[in-house]
């Protein structure tokens, strides 16, 4: 066992060369790689922290915006509800107004229909009354109602001679209107009676379907009526009285 000093010097040199070689090819590249990787990781973590911070800010912004949107949505919903309520109230009011108007129209229509029906009923009643009276008179007394009316008119003209003369003034024509055509005999009686009081007067006979049964005399500015309207009015009054009280209906129901 001995020390070879030449070998010792050579080994020292070898060792120093090895230190340099490993520093050049091992330690520096490895440590540099580790350092750069650490720096990159630190940078990425910094970026991640910044991104996280940014995300937190964005999240806070988002939350604020969402809250604002929710508040806006609530306000909008409230406003829409209010508007819908107002619109509903307006539509309901309009509907009620229309309903009331339609009810009024319906009632007016019903009133008109009732009036028309009543008028037609009056007319039909008058015609029926006239026909019944005429038939009863013809069957019982062998006379026609028109002729009887004509005679009645002739008899009533006598006390009215002065008024007729004053009213006729310069009238040249008298018009006698009936619901149905007068028999020729009745016409001659009326014509003779008028011409006896108003000489030179032309008498014309006419029929009017809308007129109530009876006779209407027009001379100049006056008009004399002998119709069943008065009786018809009394008949309507009686019917209305019975219908309003309901007594007749109950009596009829129980009494047949």
């Amino acid at each position, binding site marked *: *066992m*001995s020390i070879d000093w030449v*070998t010792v010097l*050579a080994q*020292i040199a*070898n060792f120093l060369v090895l230190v340099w070689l*490993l520093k050049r090819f091992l330690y520096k590249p490895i440590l540099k790689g580790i350092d750069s990787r650490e720096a990159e990781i630190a940078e990425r973590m910094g970026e991640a922290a910044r991104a996280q911070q940014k995300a937190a800010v964005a999240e806070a912004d988002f939350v604020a915006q969402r809250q604002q949107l929710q508040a806006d949505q609530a306000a909008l919903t409230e406003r829409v509800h209010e508007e819908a309520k107002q619109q509903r109230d307006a539509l309901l009011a309009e509907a009620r107004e229309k309903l009331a108007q339609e009810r009024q129209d319906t009632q007016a229509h019903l009133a008109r229909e009732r009036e028309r029906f009543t008028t037609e009923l009056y007319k039909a009643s008058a015609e029926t009354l006239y026909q019944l009276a005429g038939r009863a008179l013809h069957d019982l007394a062998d006379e026609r109602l028109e002729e009887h009316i004509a005679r009645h008119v002739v008899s009533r003209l006598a006390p009215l001679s002065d008024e007729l003369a004053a009213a006729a003034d310069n009238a040249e024509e008298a018009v006698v209107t009936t619901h149905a055509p007068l028999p020729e005999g009745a016409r001659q009686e009326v014509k003779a009676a008028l011409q006896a009081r108003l000489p030179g007067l032309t008498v014309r006979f006419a029929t009017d379907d809308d007129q109530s049964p009876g006779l209407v005399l027009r001379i100049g500015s006056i008009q004399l009526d002998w119709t069943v309207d008065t009786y018809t009015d009394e008949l309507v009054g009686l019917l209305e009285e019975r219908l309003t009280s309901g007594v007749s209906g109950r009596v009829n129901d129980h009494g047949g």
Partner: protein
Amino acid sequence: MQLTPDETTVFTLWGLGINETVVNTWVVMAALTVASMLVTRKLRPDVPPNRWRTTLEVIVTGIQRQVEEISPHSSRHVLYFSGTLFLFIALSNLLLVVPGFSPPTASLSTTAALALSVLIAVPLFGISRQGIGGYLKTYIQPSIVMLPFNIISEFSRGISLAIRLYGNVMSGAVIAGILLGLAPFFFPVVMDVLGLLTGLIQAYIFAILATVYISSATAVINKPGQDLDSAREHHKEQDR
């Protein structure tokens, strides 16, 4: 029985005999350098490390961690020095298992050279850190009476390092050789395995002791409040 590879001359260069110790040292150096070059030749930070690079990183960072545990504020030059000591001694001892290969560390010349390197490196590191005056003052601490003892201590460190390493490696090789003659099938294998273990332990002890000596020589200037991370940053700046 040949106890040291110094006695075997492999070839002669310019009239100078190159013995087996030097040649095997070159082999170990070449193996370490070529392996490092192959692994670190295409080192880029954006490429994930492969298994070889990871292995080297584990080794280097392990050495760095050991050095920093002993001397937290040492520069990276201590890492280069102590790390090279460890890698060289460890690989030399591991190559003990290669048939016909005599580890360079089995030569007292090699261990003496390494011990001398440590003996020279310790004052150099101390002077580089404290200045020559500051370093020489450490020899008269705590009083000038201790000067001869401190000098003896410095030399005895080197001698003990050299003898310890040489003795362990050489003894392992000698014992393996003896057992090979006595029981050639079983005991040499066991002794070689033990040799690998003791070789690695010796490499670790040698490098650690060298680091401890360097650390004791540079410890005076270290500031107590300086932490490990700031020291690392300082070393990175130095390396750049």
